[in-house]
C-alpha cells in the first residue's frame, strides 16, 4: 500500500522530516496538509493547531505528544539504528489502539525497518525516550570498559571484538566497534545528530522517572557524566 499512499504533513520537526523523507524514498506521495486534500494519514509535527477534518492523525512531535488522545489519533516516534552506507535506518514506534496501529503500519511499513506497536496513545514517545536512555547507558558502560582496557594495553577494537562475541554484547558495543574500525565517512554527521536526540530523550526519561518517584540510578549517572563533559546542552 505504501507505494501508492498519500500522506499529508502538518507542522515541522526532526522526526516529521525524517519520516516524510523515508516515505518519499519508499514511493509514497507526501503533501502538505490542506483542507479538503485526500490523504490516508496526517503526520503532525510542531505547529499551529488546525481543523484536521476527522482525518487519522499521527502525532510525530519531537518530544511530548501535542495532540489530545481520541478516536483516530495515535502518537509515533522514530528510533534510529546505526546508519548504513551514510543512509538513515529507522524503526517507527506507534502508540494507539490496534486499528490505528494497523493503519500506520500499512502506510509506513515500506519506509522503515520495522513498525512496532508500543501500546496506547503516548506510549511511542515514552518508549523512545526510555530506549534511547537505555542505549546511552549501555554505550557509556561499554566506553568505560574500553577506557580501562586501553590502560591495560588492550585496544578498543580488540576488547570490543571480544565483547561482541560474548555475553557483554549489545548494539551499543557493536556501534562502538564499528566506530573504532571503520572510517566514519558519511555517517559522522548522522552519529552526532542521533546522539543529540538521545541526550534530549535522556533528559525526558529522567523527568518521567522523577514524576513517578524513581531515581533512574544508572541513567542519572550517565546524565551527570554528560553534564560534566558539557554535552547535555546539545
Amino acid at each position: 500500500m505504501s507505494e501508492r499512499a498519500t500522506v499529508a504533513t502538518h507542522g515541522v520537526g526532526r522526526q516529521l522530516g525524517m519520516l516524510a523523507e523515508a516515505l518519499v524514498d519508499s514511493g509514497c506521495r507526501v503533501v502538505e496538509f490542506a483542507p479538503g486534500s485526500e490523504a490516508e494519514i496526517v503526520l503532525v509535527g510542531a505547529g499551529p493547531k488546525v481543523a484536521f477534518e476527522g482525518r487519522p492523525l499521527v502525532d510525530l512531535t519531537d518530544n511530548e505528544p501535542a495532540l489530545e488522545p481520541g478516536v483516530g489519533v495515535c502518537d509515533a516516534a522514530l528510533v534510529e539504528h546505526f546508519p548504513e552506507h551514510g543512509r538513515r535506518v529507522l524503526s517507527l514506534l506507534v502508540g494507539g489502539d490496534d486499528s490505528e496501529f494497523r493503519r500506520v503500519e500499512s502506510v509506513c511499513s515500506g519506509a522503515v525497518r520495522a513498525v512496532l506497536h508500543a501500546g496506547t496513545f503516548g506510549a511511542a514517545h515514552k518508549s523512545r525516550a526510555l530506549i534511547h536512555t537505555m542505549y546511552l547507558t549501555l554505550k557509556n558502560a561499554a566506553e568505560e570498559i574500553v577506557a580501562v582496557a586501553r590502560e591495560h594495553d588492550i585496544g578498543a577494537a580488540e576488547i570490543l571484538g571480544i565483547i561482541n562475541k560474548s555475553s557483554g554484547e549489545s548494539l551499543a558495543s557493536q556501534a562502538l566497534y564499528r566506530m573504532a574500525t571503520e572510517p566514519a565517512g558519511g555517517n559522522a554527521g548522522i552519529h552526532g545528530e542521533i546522539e543529540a536526540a538521545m541526550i534530549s530523550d535522556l533528559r525526558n526519561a529522567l523527568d518521567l522517572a522523577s514524576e513517578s518517584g524513581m531515581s533512574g540510578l544508572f541513567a542519572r549517572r550517565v546524565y551527570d557524566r554528560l553534564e560534566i563533559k558539557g554535552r547535555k546542552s546539545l
Partner: protein
Amino acid sequence: MKALGFIGLGAMGARMARNLVRAGHPLAVHDVNGEAVARAEQDGAVGKASAADVARAAEVILICVPKSDHVEQVFYGEGGIREALDDGKRRIIIDCSSSKAATSRRIGAEMRALGGDFLDAPVSGGIARAETGELAIIVGGDQDTYEECRPVFNVIGANFFRVGELGMGNLAKALNNILSCGNVMIIGEALLLAAKSGLDPRRFADVAGKTLGESYAMERRVTAEVLSGRYASNFKMGLMYKDLTYAMELAAEARVAPLVAGFAHDVAAAATARYGEDADYTRTVNLQELWETGQSAVFGPV
C-alpha cells in the same frame, strides 16, 4: 592426540570434558565432588584421586574452577599439580577459570621455569555453548603454545581471541563480565521506568529488543530469565560479585573511575548480601525494584 587432564567438573567443566572425550582425547579427570567424577567416568574419562595424579597422566591439563583461590589450591595445594611436575616432562596448563591475571602470571612463570607453559583461557557463553562446544575463549599466553593447543580449543570452543601475554585473557574476560552483568541491570532499570511510566514492561522489552535494546542481556537474560520468572541463568550471584570486584580492581589500577560499572558493582554487593552467593545473578533486578519502588510488582517477589 595429546593425553589430556581436566580438573573441575562443575556445570561448565563437565560439559567441556565430555566434549573432549567424545572427540577422542584420552582424558584423566579430578573434582572434589566424587559424583561429578563418576559421571565423567561414565562418559569415558578416567577418574583420578588428585590434581597431581591428573597431571602425571596428562600432557595438557585443563582447569575450570570458580575462583583464583581455587586455581592456586589446584596448583599449590596438597595433592596439587605442582607435586607432579618434577619428572622433567613438558606439560601445558590451560586455565579456563575466570581468575585473576596475577594468578596466571605467577603460575605461568613457574610452569615456564619447569620447561612447560601456561595459558589463561577463560570461556564465555554459558552452559548452552559449553554443551555444544561453541564457547568463546579468550586466551593470554605464548603464541606458539596457543597454536599448539588449538586442537584442544577447537573441541570446546567456536570463537577464539588471543589478546596478549599471560594474564591478558583473564583481564579481558573480567572486562566483558562487567558488561555481561551491568547490561542486565541497565535494562532492568529501563523496564522499571517503563512500568512506572504506565507502559507494559513486557511489551516495552519486546519493542526495545527489536530496536536499540537488542543485546545478549535483553534476549538471553532479561527476556528469557527475568520476565519469564525462571531466574535460572546458571551464573551465581557470588561469582558475579567476584568478577565485578576484580574488574573494579582493574579500573583502579588503570586510574579510571567507571560511574556505571562502579554502580553495577555496588548493586552486586548489596544483592549478594541480600539474596546470598548461590542466588542466580539475574536476581539483582529484584533489589533494584525494591530500591526504586519499595515493591516487588514488576519482577515479582524473591
